């Protein structure tokens, strides 16, 4: 009887956590150690997806088209056991999502450029510009963060950040 009571108290507590929202915990250590505080809410909402776009130039003022940098792969059963490239691609996408969170929280546009997330995305974009299929020498590059609408809406993607032209 006592066990059943504890069990239902536990279910009740979990349900309460869904409805009661206290102050959001923030801070650099909280961010780095957030794995200690899992909220277990996976894929619970589908919102606009921040995505990295990159374009490169060989330095003669001619820019190639913007190219989306999104994790995309072919499915293989063996990846259940060994899947480093795809996991890295997913970690890179998480980095872009963290940059989007930082952009939303930033007081002004210039502050964004000092963020670690921005500076890491600069490197990610450089790598993507260099690895572009058929690309020759990359002298300059630029990246954008665009919000792709959810549910396949026909609304065009909104650009939320455009980097300055960067030297490769």
């Amino acid at each position, binding site marked *: 009887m006592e066990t059943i009571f504890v069990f239902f108290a536990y279910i009740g507590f979990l349900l309460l956590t869904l409805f009661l929202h206290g102050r959001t915990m923030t801070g650099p250590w909280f961010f*780095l150690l957030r794995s200690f505080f899992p909220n277990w809410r996976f894929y619970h909402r589908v919102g606009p997806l921040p995505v990295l776009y990159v374009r490169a130039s060989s330095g003669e003022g001619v820019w190639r088209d913007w190219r989306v940098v999104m994790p995309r792969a072919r*499915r293989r059963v063996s990846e259940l056991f060994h899947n480093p490239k795809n996991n890295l691609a997913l*970690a890179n996408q998480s980095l872009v999502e963290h940059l989007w969170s930082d952009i939303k929280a930033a007081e002004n546009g210039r502050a964004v450029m000092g963020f*670690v997330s921005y500076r890491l995305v600069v490197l990610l974009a450089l790598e993507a510009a260099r690895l572009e299929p058929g690309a020759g020498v990359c002298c300059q590059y630029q990246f954008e963060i665009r919000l792709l609408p959810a549910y396949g809406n026909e609304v065009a993607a909104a650009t939320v950040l455009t980097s300055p032209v960067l030297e490769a």
Partner: protein
Amino acid sequence: MLLNEFNLLRAVEIIFAISLLLQGAEFLCLRSASAVSLGWNWSVQRDDLCHTVLWLRRFFDLVFRPDVYRAHLFLRMAVAFYLLLYGGTIFCVLFLFFGTLCILIRWRGAFNGGSDFMTLVVITGLMIARLGAPWLGDTLAFRAGLLYIAIQALSSYFLSGTVKLFYDGWRDGRALPALLDGGIYGPLKPDSIFRRQSIARVCSWAFIVWECVFPLTMISPRWTLIWCLLALGFHFLVFWYFGLNRFFWAWAATLPAIIYCATCF
């Protein structure tokens, strides 16, 4: 009795060790890739710690030096192999716990989201069991460790299900194809069956009901066993459609703890 604390904690350790070995092999692969890759550069990322004291930053500079980081990954795999063959010790679980913390900091808090959270939960449960044993005795300490893992795992299923239940996008089936479109194997083909709202709705509700009901299966170990087998199928689907292989192994390691929890009722 087969389903006692000792056997089930050992089962957790074996599956968890396999999970750690697979993670370790992936990290080693990424480490060699990072020799030519620019992303996740520690010289940039170390500014995440700019608020901390100097000695701590210096400590992480040392820990994340490529040769030290590589040695740590090899050592971690050796300890995981020991865990697989012989079971946990206090040294073993403490090393894995603090090593996991370092790796999480290297990847800005999480490399693979939920699987990192669950990896930390399992290692914490093993730590409760192994550190508590000298004071509480094996039976009580192992029980505490297993129940900690089970409560977290059951909470993960229940919360993940109920938040979907309260979201109309999941209830009417729109969320599933949208998520699959954005997934690593996406976008879905135009004629995919998941684009049919009726099928997407049935699949969504199947996931929601299965996740929400999971804690209720504690009333019977037989039902728990069935739900745990379904869980393996569910996590395989998550891998198959989203490429999240680490989730499969991280949650598989919790299933013996959930079965143990059912035997307590």
